């Protein structure tokens, strides 16, 4: 059996063919093969959420998904949130509220928060806290992240993008 395989996936709207080691995680495929280094590794055990991406509409920890499983999938990473220089409402809110410090967890929080707001445009603080419980942040204490998600949600309700 070949040790490598081609994986065809639509990443941030662009069809790509990635040459992946059979054992490669989706996280490594995105970073090493597709050059999308915005997605971060925090633990490799699915406990921290730094590697969060959306795959076929579902929020997943890309460190726990095999690259081969992404065959034919549509994947959104942090690099897919802004359209050109037009930032997503969440990105704008994270900037405005200073909802980040070191920035390693930030891509995961942005992707996870987008997945939440796509499902639930008006989440309560409680719902945001529980939805984001799979994403660890060591710097912010979450308060400004929660404020940013609430502010982006309000922005998107007024002006959906």
């Amino acid at each position: 059996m070949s040790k490598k395989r081609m994986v065809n996936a639509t990443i941030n709207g662009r069809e790509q063919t990635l040459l992946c080691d059979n054992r490669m995680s989706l996280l490594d495929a995105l970073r090493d093969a597709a050059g999308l280094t915005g997605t971060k590794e925090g633990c490799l055990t699915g406990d921290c959420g730094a590697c969060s991406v959306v795959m076929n509409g579902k929020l997943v920890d890309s460190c726990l998904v095999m690259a081969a499983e992404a065959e034919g999938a549509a994947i959104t990473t942090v690099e897919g949130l802004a359209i050109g220089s037009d930032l997503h409402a969440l990105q704008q809110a994270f900037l405005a509220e200073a909802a980040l410090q070191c920035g390693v967890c930030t891509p995961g929080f942005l992707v996870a928060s987008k997945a939440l707001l796509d499902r639930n445009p008006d989440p309560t603080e409680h719902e945001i806290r529980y939805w984001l419980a799979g994403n660890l942040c060591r710097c912010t204490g979450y308060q400004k992240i929660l404020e940013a998600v609430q502010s982006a949600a309000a922005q998107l309700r007024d002006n959906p993008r």
Partner: protein
Amino acid sequence: MSEITSESLGGIGQSVKRKEDLRFILGKGSYVEDFYLPGMVYGCVVRSPFAHAKINGIDSSEALKVPGVMAVITAKELEGANLSWMPTLAGDTQAVLADKKVHFQSQEVAFVIGETQYAAADGAEAVEVDYEELPVVVDPFKALDPGAPLLRDDKEGQKDNHIFNWQAGDKEATEKAFQNAEVTVSQSTHYQRCHPAPMETCGCVADVNPGTGRTTIYITSQAPHAHRTVLALVSPLKEHTTRLVSPDLGGGFGNKVPVYPGYILATVASLTLGLPVKWIETRSENIQSTGFARDYHTTMELAATKDGKITALRVKTLADHGAFNAQANPMKWPAGLFSICTGSYDIPNAHVEVDAVYTNKAPGGVAYRCSFRVTEASYAIERAVDLLAGELKMDPVQLRKKNFIQPDQFPYTSVTGWEYDSGDYEKAMQVALDLVGYEDLRKEQAEKRAKGELMGIGISSFTEIAGAGPRKDFDILGLSMNDGAEIRVHPTGTVTARFGVKSQGQGHETTFAQILAEELGLPEADILVEEGDTDTAPYGLGTYGSRSTPVAGGAAVLAARKVREKGMKIAAHLLEVSEADIEWKNYQFQVKGAPAKAKTMAEVAFAAYTNAPPGEEVGLEATYYYDPPNFTFPFGTYICVLDIDNKTGEFKIRRFVAVDDCGTIINPMILEGQIHGGLTEGLAIATMQEIRFDDQGNCLNGSFMDYLLPTAVEVPNWDLDRTVTPSPHHPIGAKGVGESSNVGSPAAIVNAFVDALSHLGVTNIEMPVTPWKIWQLLHEKGVA
């Protein structure tokens, strides 16, 4: 021309948006892991499964057969280069790769290089090490038993497992005060072993280029200059041809201060293969092998009069330093700043004693979001004061007020020798009491107690010591703890400023630009701050111990004032007046008494390159290395209010009020974020984090599954307020803030737990305080 103001410049005190954030929210940060160099290969460390074992042999032959494996490095290969051992920051030695025996579980034994990270990992699996298990020392109290196995038999003259005994204060006077005391209290406690666990683990990409003769190491370093100097001292690498680049760092909290074997191994591998080598720790490697924090077994005692005047403090600590004494502390201060443990109180007698021992655990003792053991000190005194309040049946607020150092006592010299710069402790406390509604809470607590409900109010009025440090006393491996700033004002009036410190998320690119904007009269948007590249940054010892603002911030101000001094000459030339007639006012160079005749810094900058005064050097640049005259002493009062379920022991923090005083505030928005983060880590320490071992030295929780970090679910909303008492000796009165909240909060939280259960006779609960521990106590007392 419109008036220049601090607001228009984005100067000191403005909530300027963070310059670093745009790249992070776009996924375009540039962390060590994001460096992919042409031809790069990967390293993986083979680690010991045993805590103490003899190595009879290492067989790499099977590993070398694994497809894609390029080389295996063991201690034998390192010996040739004299690199099998390296110095630690505390002046001890640490094995880069274990040669004769392993001293802790997860210790580095071999390094496998593969074409991919997968090949390297497979190769590491295939390395066969013949271990012969040895008796293990896990309990630090047993480390000094006669007959305890000698762990460091590699050290000549080492007869036992004792590392040092260090004392401060007056032992005799303290003992006398205890003998004569009306009341004494004593409590033994363990500030448990924690790990800073930043979201980004440690790692590097080492690129020894045989063509250029240059070595470039992209490295997760909080102190790249210091690390380069250490490398140059112990290896054949030369400082001028070695470039350390600490790019965006994903948090540090002290974890990225030490030099780790992986950095050396990747560099040796790159030298051997002539290829760039990437080594990135896994999370488990991070938690199990790199710098832990705390692990102080402390007995704290207070002596007092019956009416609550503290007369003496006695603190005795047994410090578990693990297998190598690798703590990050200044050479003359083996227990760091621990003798600041008299805290916010005017205590006439004190004696502090620390003994450190070797055990079969990972080395470390890093300053985890604190200034060299000040967290342990703050916890000891703030818990002890509550203990005394309980003994005296006095309100902990009243007891603190009675013993606070008073505003008119500053500068105040403590009995352990620290000169506190400024403070107004009661004022900060009063703000906190008013904000939380203290009197009402005590009434509510009494009502709840009558109904059998459990509610606790915990207070901590901490004093921190930050900004290491004055060079007369403070160094790391002999290097003075001073820091440089270099400013280049370009002809068009924009600025590149470089620093020897290194942000790990604190926002230096923004706050240092704000300081310079204020001093130079140029907008912060026109000031680019760069850090972390030893090729370009001025020398400095890096960022930890809340030293960036106190030390590098001072350097920034004084470098900017040098620029202004030169600017005076140029402005005088342009305005055709004598230099004595020019003053720096309203953020520009003005003619005294004729403010309409003025030149902006940008105009002066252009002239510096196009129309410099005759005889004056062209250009507008300055460098300053700042040696702080003293430490800074941030302080504050934190109040934690929590409710406990009297059947299950589960708890909820209802309210947490944090009033900080860090002197002059540079950016209130960034300040809030720093405090939120520190409080959250304090909550983590108080209720979750502890690295645990079994009796064979196996680490029991080396992943985020079981070494718990708080999530958005557990963390309350923090209520912040502040007072501002500037530091009299700092050029802008700033004291530093990144760590105060981690220093002050664990005691507030534990005091709240103990307060909730005090009527049941509970006087102490060891951290981390978990629902299980509380339930056990409730069960013992017949409540649950």
